[in-house]
């Protein structure tokens, strides 16, 4: 255990701080700004130039070309959070497509797509889930049939965030209907302007359309737009999952939520008494505080494991499940603390914190379900982490 940073890292932290002091004025606000706003694109250019976005990606494709260093990555995240300045663009294009192309794309694909994606000019959406293929993603049915030099695509995708703004989609389609389900999938890249694509916003319980449905009717895509070979799409899509994507997340986000709740409790008064003076709420707050710190330290343990290039094992596997659950329970306490004022929503008078906590409470439930549901996470923890036997396969009817 040694929680101090060596001089090299303290110097690096000083550099990050100096950068932030100098360029902070160019940063867009933390609140959602349009994906295509000039301010955001300019900020991305500045970040790329100084190595605070695409830091470890090769220079020839528009990255900064630095050696991977988890501690520096953590310092960047900490300092940006401290300055309340947003980091680089973190869409599915940058997080998922770029690593996939770097590993499995052709030279032409890398040159055509990576730099533009990193700069924020090219926005991607991910065409994976379907109405009939959620947790069992490999059962997807959107069909791509070869006709001349094209695939002709018919089917439907769902949970496609940013589909309404995206230029391009990376999409899993079934090209070999007779092969076993994992071996019949291909990974295609195509423009969202291709004729035959219809995007419909998908309204969720939060009252917003954070996602879309995408319908394909005879969409023609050149066969050269495939990554990997026909039937290798499942492998292509999973290749980058081992990159520990998102695993290190922002360990301090839950802590800042906890601190906000403590402030709310000090400021909310019932019959003239602060909610912090109510021992029942106070007990819930401290119980959550212990969990928040446990996850924070678990995150520090993961950073060290990553620096040491060791597997963090179970400590990494539980993060999605436990982190989302914890965030949800934090939002729950915030709402309970506000009492009747906690149910105010949208543009109501007397609304607290712009309705943030109800939005968290509902959207976090979405996060518990999405991105590998809690139940799928538990299967992964028990089967891969603890070596427990898999559920016997049910014979096809």
């Amino acid at each position, binding site marked *: *255990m*040694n*929680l*101090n*940073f060596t001089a090299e*890292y303290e110097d690096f932290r000083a550099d990050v701080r100096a950068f932030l002091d100098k360029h902070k004025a160019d940063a867009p606000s933390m609140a959602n700004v349009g994906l295509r706003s000039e301010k955001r694109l300019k900020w991305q250019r500045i970040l790329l130039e100084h190595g605070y976005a695409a830091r470890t990606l090769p220079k020839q494709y528009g990255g900064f070309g630095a050696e991977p260093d988890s*501690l520096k990555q953590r310092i960047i995240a900490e300092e940006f959070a401290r300055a309340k300045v947003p980091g680089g663009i973190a869409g599915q294009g940058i997080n998922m497509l770029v690593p996939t192309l770097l590993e499995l794309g052709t030279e032409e694909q890398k040159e055509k797509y990576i730099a533009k994606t990193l700069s924020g000019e090219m926005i991607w959406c991910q065409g994976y889930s379907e109405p009939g293929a959620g947790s069992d993603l490999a059962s997807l049915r959107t069909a791509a049939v070869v006709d001349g030099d094209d695939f002709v695509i018919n089917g439907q995708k769902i949970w496609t965030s940013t589909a309404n703004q995206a230029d391009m989609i990376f999409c899993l389609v079934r090209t070999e209907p007779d092969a076993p389900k994992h071996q019949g999938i291909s990974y295609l890249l195509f423009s969202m302007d291709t004729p035959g694509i219809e995007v419909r916003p998908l309204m969720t319980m939060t009252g917003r359309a954070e996602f879309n449905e995408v319908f394909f009717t005879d969409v023609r895509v050149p066969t050269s737009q495939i990554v990997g070979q026909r039937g290798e799409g499942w492998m292509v899509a999973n290749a980058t999952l081992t990159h520990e994507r998102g695993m290190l997340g922002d360990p301090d986000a839950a802590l800042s939520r906890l601190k906000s709740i*403590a402030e709310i*409790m*000090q400021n909310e008064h019932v019959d003239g008494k602060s909610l*912090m*003076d109510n*021992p029942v709420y*106070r*007990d819930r*707050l*401290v*119980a959550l*505080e*212990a*969990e928040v*710190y*446990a*996850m924070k*330290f*678990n995150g*520090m*343990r993961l*950073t*060290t*494991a990553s*620096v*040491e290039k060791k597997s963090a094992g*179970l*400590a990494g596997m*539980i993060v999605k*499940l*436990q982190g989302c*659950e914890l965030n949800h329970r934090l939002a729950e306490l915030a709402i309970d603390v506000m009492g009747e004022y906690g149910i105010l929503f949208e543009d109501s008078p007397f609304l607290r914190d712009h309705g943030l906590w109800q939005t968290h409470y509902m959207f976090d439930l979405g996060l518990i379900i999405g991105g590998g549901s809690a*139940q799928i*996470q*538990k*299967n992964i*923890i*028990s*089967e891969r*982490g*603890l*070596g*427990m*036997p*898999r*559920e*016997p396969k049910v014979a096809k009817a």
Partner: protein
Amino acid sequence: MYFGLSQDQTMLQDSVQRYLESASELEHVRGFAEGDNSLAESLQNGLMELGVPLVLVPEEFGGLGLGVLEAALIQQAMGRFVSPTSFTSAYAMAVIGLREAGDDDQKNDWLGRIAGGSAIIGVGLTEAIGAREGAGLKLSGDKVSGRASFVMGAELATHFMLTTGKDLLIIARDSAGVSETALTTIDKTRHVIMLDLQDVPCTVLAGGAVAAQARMIDIGRVLLAADSLGAADMMIEKSVAYSKDREQFNRPIGSFQAVKHMCADMVAKLEPCRSLVWYAAYAQDHVSDEAALMSRLAKSHLAEVGKYVARTSTEVHGGMGFTDLLGLHYWFKRIGANRQLLGGPETVREEAAKLQGWS
């Protein structure tokens, strides 16, 4: 920055664990629980040979001069094998009490005796956390009278370190005026007693009780959290092993999601506790402004997660988990006792709120 155990720390824990794995087998623990004190004696000797009782004793007094993190790793191994030792009280809390409140002569004398094995000091600080049944001690001259409840480390103690609230003091167990009441608790892997004292001669530590007993309680709580962590680790391992082995409906019960999700839930809750215990222990020596808070967070959180694992693991074992035959209940009860000793979770959380100006 390095958040994890050093090679030395891992080796220390492994060596204690390897020793206890054979020396503190379930059958031995069962014998102890049924009234045969010999396991406590053999573990005392074996651990002394490994140097375990010396970890927190400074080198100048013949000890190893290691930190609370090392002590927590040792305690975790003891929880893992539900070992009847007095480590928490005699070799952590009492040593800390002497380090914090003893003058040079007292440290020389008592730490020397501890290192040499001639003094094993049990600890009773329950009344410093909250007194029930009118318990409490009063000092009159150099004689102490009154009641100290739930005194820990009674297995082999030769002495006890107690508090009046203002003063920390040490009494000899065999002094005239000491009357002991053995308490039967759910946890038969450790002995706690009630002490009624009538004009018992004592050594009053020079430094006063307030700061020293706060440190003792902070560190004692971290160790009880570590003990529950070790016990809960073992309960999860036993659950996984049992569920792979036990078959119903022609398949191992571990292939049912109902069962494997119980195991995943236990892991998801317990794994972050490991980092919390490490940090809380480390903070005792290296992050003084967080030491008191982190001790309370670790103690209360391990009380909750420990209870969850104890209950869930028992359920995974089905009817067998409920029997005496399997012996799983020793872990269940050890965790249950750790939850209450040195303050239950609500008490400890309220203290944590006070520390932060929330109460």
